[in-house]
């Protein structure tokens, strides 16, 4: 894939990506070297670690645990708060020259509003906000907002009011009615949907006979959840008209293709970056090869064709 090649380009809620691979929230640190073009080959965009109004120290105790073909995490939104983000990290993020989305964890309305207002002030340099109504690892708010259509509508409406740029909403697979939540988010003004965040699971350390995580439950990600994420994308794609970003267990170009054939326009990858830095480039090469083989000029032609 050359940088001029536009066969993999997509438009996600007004954000133009050269490749459909978005690095998911919470996996890419703010070390400057990692934001150089050589370290981001094949990446179309990045989502930042969740940003909250005030700094958060995250959860105590064990934070990551491996499971068969997956991992559980309970980080708990550790971050320096929106001001630190803007001052210290945003300059690094911008250095990559790539589009990025600022992952904003929904807190209580006052906090969410304040965070978005701060970002809105500088919205000409922020391509999009990814509203995270799906973090399973905190007490206040987090995932609860994404469980039901009503609360999701409330959270998205609030965001829409205070953030004027492109608004992506990241859903939780924990919702009993993900289609309803998706519609509600669309109606409330979302420009794109990220489907989805982690699944709630748990682990017990049999040597200590205690739950591994202090909060007992944690979020499951990685290849293990791919079949579940694909179904969520399939379901949501039958419901909304805004672009969908598939997320959950994508590792190979076949995984990415499957997401696209199910109706996603792009994918986010998280855990895969823990395993192999070359994942985005590898997926892009695979996709480009597939397009060539099938004599297709743009990946967009494949969106939803399995339906």
């Amino acid at each position, binding site marked *: 894939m050359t940088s001029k090649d536009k066969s993999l380009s997509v438009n996600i809620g007004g954000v133009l990506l050269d490749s459909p691979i978005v690095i998911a929230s919470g996996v890419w640190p703010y070390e400057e070297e990692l934001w150089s073009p050589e370290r981001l080959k094949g990446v179309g965009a990045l989502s930042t670690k969740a940003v909250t109004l005030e700094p958060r120290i*995250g959860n105590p105790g064990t934070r990551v645990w*491996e499971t068969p073909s997956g991992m559980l995490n309970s980080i708990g939104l550790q971050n320096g708060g929106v001001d630190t983000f803007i001052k210290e990290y945003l300059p690094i993020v911008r250095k990559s020259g790539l589009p990025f989305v600022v992952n904003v964890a929904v807190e209580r309305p006052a906090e969410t509003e304040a965070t978005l207002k701060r970002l809105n002030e500088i919205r000409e340099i922020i391509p999009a906000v990814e509203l995270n109504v799906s973090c399973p690892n905190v007490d206040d708010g987090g995932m609860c907002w994404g469980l039901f259509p009503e609360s999701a509508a409330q959270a998205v409406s609030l965001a829409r009011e205070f953030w004027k740029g492109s608004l992506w909403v990241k859903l939780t697979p924990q919702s009993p009615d993900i289609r309803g939540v998706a519609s509600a988010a669309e109606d409330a003004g979302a420009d794109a949907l990220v489907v989805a965040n982690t699944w709630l699971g748990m682990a017990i350390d049999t040597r200590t006979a205690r739950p591994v995580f202090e909060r007992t439950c944690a979020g499951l990600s990685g*290849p293990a959840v791919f079949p579940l994420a694909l179904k969520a994308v399939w379901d949501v794609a039958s419901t909304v008209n805004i672009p969908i970003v598939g997320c959950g267990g994508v590792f190979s170009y076949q995984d990415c293709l499957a997401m696209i054939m199910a109706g996603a326009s792009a994918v986010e990858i998280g855990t895969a970056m823990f395993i192999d830095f070359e994942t985005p480039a590898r997926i892009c090469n695979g996709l480009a090869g597939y397009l060539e083989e099938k004599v297709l000029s743009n990946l967009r032609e494949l969106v939803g064709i399995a339906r």
Partner: protein
Amino acid sequence: MFDGESSIPAGDFKGTVRDIRQITETVFSIHIACPVISRLARPGQFIMIRFPNRSDPLLGRPLAVSSAGGDDISICFQVVGKMTALLSRILPGEILSLRGPMGNGFGLPSSTMVTMVAGALGAAPLIFAYNRMPQNIGKNFILGVADRSWYPFCEWIKKLIPEVRFFSEDGIIGKKGTVLNGLGEELSPEEEIWTCGPLPMMRAIGQKYTRGRERIRVSLETRMACGMGGCQGCVINTLKGKKRVCVDGPVFSAEEVCWDDLKG
């Protein structure tokens, strides 16, 4: 203190197993051909190792580089779980995926005498550090082990580090007692300690001296998922706030670590 040099892993590389050697019933050493990592690795740094093209085990496991030369590096490890069990059955010619080299490493000594204190497999990074120690620096090496089952391991270490002094809990290997018995009452201003081993041992060393703690460098272990600073899974509490063991460490000064917050 040790974060002068960049500690982000250079990348993910393929390594070819050259040979594997069984040292004790549960301890193994592997030579791996991986030119880039061999060239870049500094003492105290580590790699995340995994099997390519399989998602179980999924995550890499952190293992210290115990030597690097020519195209090869070596690691040594104890079988404690899934990945180490699989590694213990590896065959020459097999391909591994290596992320690294990473971590700040021990850095350069700031005194004229370094006492290296290893507990069991904690010897791994210190073997490397010992062999790369600048000529003009005095060095000691103390190794503590549990019992006689570690005898072949001690023999193996002795070949690499002839001056090594042993301590064992049952007194069968070297002197009876723990490595703490090998340390002086005070830490002289010309001396520093580099240590790696079980947490209780490092905690005891880290808290033994009231003065000079900033001259004690401890290489910590925590559970890791990414080894590149992204997941924040490996954080510990320090006097300067949360730090990630993978990229801000694994080497910290005993002074900055909040020992009471560390579990284990």
